[in-house]
């Protein structure tokens, strides 16, 4: 159970009022099968506040234009907002320069960029790529593909029965051969918050470059890439109240500068002739073609929304919801919680003896409760716990204790049907 908040301090008795914010999210007032929607699938994708929805209408309704190459007023305004969003995001994650903030189509794209551009240039046969047993497929498959291409070897840090990384095994696996360490900051399948700062320091001692998958961390933890001293940090907008199809790769300038481009096209070049292509500076070298202008502006707006509430307050409330839900679900004897790390964020994975998660999902949906069931794109976690799938409730700051109660009540119905 989560005794510590995601920011490491004890959870205070909070006076956070989610109803203050629920009204910003139009979808939260809808009904499903005649019942009020209880949206507990935030780890898959969070909902969007009206403020972000409006930023889209405003962009397309008043100043949409292609960026970077126009002298006219609309293009200038779109460019200013797009680059302004980059600066906002830079400050939000405390990158030292906007050159280090690259826009991608999502966390998956960000990690692939590193695997393709950094990986294919720097990794050679016999090198080791160290990841963990709790990675999302987005932080497994690109490395598997790279290993197949280069002859590098994939090594995996095991997880304990509680769902924490086995840090002793990590230290044993880490060696001078480790070229890349890939680690998820917050596990989407287990909720575990990994001690990435310490792991980065240890990896750096051995000369490894560290890629942190921050997709689940962004909505819960205040990220400071310089404090973490992380080399690459990836996240998606749609998991932090922003749009789909948009993500960020933070990378250290010194690394990015040496890397070849990822995709070729407009905007990523200084000049093109059939004999010679001169690539553009950072961050444009990695942003070929017309970027996701409205998405980037929407992401900055979403982060501003989060920042106005305060990510620490958000995390504290999510912790309180998680503690409460964990306590209540454990009262149901047939339920087994999967992932009981000391340090955990807003994800409650569980199985019910004799009932397949898919059936749980269907029956809960009849009550308007949206949870995710399946392998959560983390099959190795499922294998580790010898289960085909779990049911997962994941909380956002707009969730309430009443919604937790609805979840528990509906789970009791499931058990009633199945016994």
């Amino acid at each position, binding site marked *: 159970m989560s005794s510590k908040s995601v920011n490491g301090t004890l959870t205070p008795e909070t006076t956070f009022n989610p109803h203050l914010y629920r009204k910003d999210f139009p979808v939260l007032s809808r009904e499903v*099968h005649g019942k009020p929607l209880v949206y507990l699938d935030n780890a898959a994708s969070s909902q969007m506040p009206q403020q972000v929805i409006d930023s889209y209408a405003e962009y397309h309704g008043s100043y949409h234009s292609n960026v970077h190459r126009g002298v006219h007023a609309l293009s200038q305004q779109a460019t200013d907002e797009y680059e302004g969003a980059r600066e906002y995001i830079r400050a939000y994650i405390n990158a030292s320069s906007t050159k280090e903030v690259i826009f991608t189509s999502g966390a998956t794209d960000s990690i692939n960029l590193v695997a393709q551009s950094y990986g294919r240039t720097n990794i050679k046969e016999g090198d080791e790529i160290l990841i963990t047993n709790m990675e999302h497929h987005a932080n497994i498959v690109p490395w598997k593909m790279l290993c197949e291409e280069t002859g590098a070897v994939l090594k995996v840090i095991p997880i304990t029965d509680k769902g924490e990384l086995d840090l002793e095994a990590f230290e044993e696996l880490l060696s001078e051969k480790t070229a890349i360490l890939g680690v998820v900051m917050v596990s989407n399948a287990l909720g575990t918050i990994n001690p990435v700062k310490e792991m980065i320091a240890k990896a750096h001692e051995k000369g490894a470059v560290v890629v942190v998958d921050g997709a689940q961390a962004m909505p819960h933890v205040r990220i400071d890439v310089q404090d973490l001293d992380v080399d690459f940090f990836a996240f998606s907008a749609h998991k932090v109240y922003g749009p789909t199809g948009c993500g960020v790769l933070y990378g250290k300038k010194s690394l990015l500068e040496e890397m070849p481009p990822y995709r070729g096209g407009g905007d990523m070049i200084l000049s093109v002739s059939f004999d010679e292509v001169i690539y553009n500076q950072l961050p444009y070298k990695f942003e070929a073609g017309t970027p996701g202008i409205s998405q980037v502006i929407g992401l900055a707006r979403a982060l501003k929304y989060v920042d106005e509430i305060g990510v620490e307050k958000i995390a504290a409330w999510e912790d309180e919801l998680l503690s409460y839900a964990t306590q209540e679900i454990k009262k149901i004897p047939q339920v087994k919680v999967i992932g009981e790390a000391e340090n955990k964020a807003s994800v409650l994975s569980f199985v019910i003896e004799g009932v*397949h*998660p*898919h059936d749980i999902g269907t029956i809960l949906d009849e009550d308007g409760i949206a949870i995710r*069931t399946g392998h959560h794109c983390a099959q190795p976690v499922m294998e580790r716990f010898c289960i085909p*799938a779990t049911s997962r409730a994941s909380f956002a700051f707009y969730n309430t204790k009443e919604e937790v109660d609805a979840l528990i009540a509906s789970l009791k119905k499931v058990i009633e*049907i199945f016994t």
Partner: protein
Amino acid sequence: MNYERTKQLYQQLILDHNKNPRNFRIIDPADKEAVGNNPLCGDKLVVYVNVNEDQIVEDVSFIGEGCAISKASASMMTTFAKGKHIDEVNHIFQQFHDLTTGKLDPEKDEHDLGKLAVFAGVKDLPARVKCATLSWHTLHAAVNGKEQISTE
């Protein structure tokens, strides 16, 4: 769709085939086998089948992990298919498919589904249609010499 209907659907299936699936075993060696994947729920099942010279399904079985709907469906599929001619199996597969996607109404339309008609309720659960049809698709693949199928 309502809670009572879901409850009914589940109870009818569960009382029997989910808890005690029929033909839940490996045929070794089998003439044909295929693996069916439902990436949606991470389910996987293997269907084994022996077909004789007259195109009659002599034996059919399955193993694997699955939700109540897919397990009950696989179980009922095996009891149905055993002893039938391949053409008849294909014919029923088509009807079953129409049933679960709402194209066939067992109350109104003619059909030969017998007990399989219990799966009519699945049409109101669009996310679960694939669970109900996975075993049938896999049987079909096995008979036609494919080794892997996926419902996505």
